[in-house]
């Protein structure tokens, strides 16, 4: 996974907080920077994909590690 400029840990948070916090974090970043978001909400797999699609930010990749979902998002 790409090196992240910023890491956002949303572990323990439920819908819609991971998406809302991701939005806030990405808004504060510069274009081209990469956010790594960590979540424990299984719904966030589809939700983050949908959010990236709608907001034209690029989902570079996602992974599952021991019950945690890790997303790499590049700000467009």
């Amino acid at each position, binding site marked *: 996974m790409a090196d992240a400029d910023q890491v956002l840990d949303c572990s*323990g*948070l*439920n*819908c*819609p*907080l991971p*998406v*809302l916090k*991701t*939005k806030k974090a990405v808004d504060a970043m510069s274009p081209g920077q990469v956010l790594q978001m960590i979540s424990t*909400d299984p719904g966030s797999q589809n939700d983050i994909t*949908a*959010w990236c699609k*709608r*907001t034209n930010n690029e989902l570079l990749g996602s992974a599952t590690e021991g019950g945690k979902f890790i997303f790499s998002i590049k700000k467009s």
Partner: protein
Amino acid sequence: MSTKMTIIATKGTLDWAYPPFILGSTAAALDFDVTIFFTFYGLTLLRKKITAQVSPLGNPAMPMKMPMGPKWFRNITWNIPNFVQSLVPGYEALATTLMKKTISNVGVASVGELRELCQEAGVKMLACQMTVDLFGFEQSDFIDGIEFVGASTYLDVASDAQINLFT
């Protein structure tokens, strides 16, 4: 041009407070232009202090579970007879306390937190002036940054929106 969405919020109980604020804040995070029209009991969600409660009475699909103790205990669904629910003083207050505990246990935001997130994200909130008069409220009872309007203002906004929801 961004997607426009409106929601009509008509209910003021704790459980029904969630759909408009979850969908509103999430839609704003998706860069939608969001307007929520609060009318009838939904209007109470715009008061300065949210006092929404939940009632298991007349809410037969609501699982009654305990938010504390070992897992087997939490998994029990308590079937409380209607006459107990209606006669025991403070039953709704108890159910509300238990529901709020469950909400924080599973990492779901409080209604107040979601409302703040909506405000921060620029969700437009319209309060129904007719409901203010109907229930004898004052405009000063409500949070700042909202507009007091009637049905035609809502319908004007809704006619330009791609998504219009009723909750």
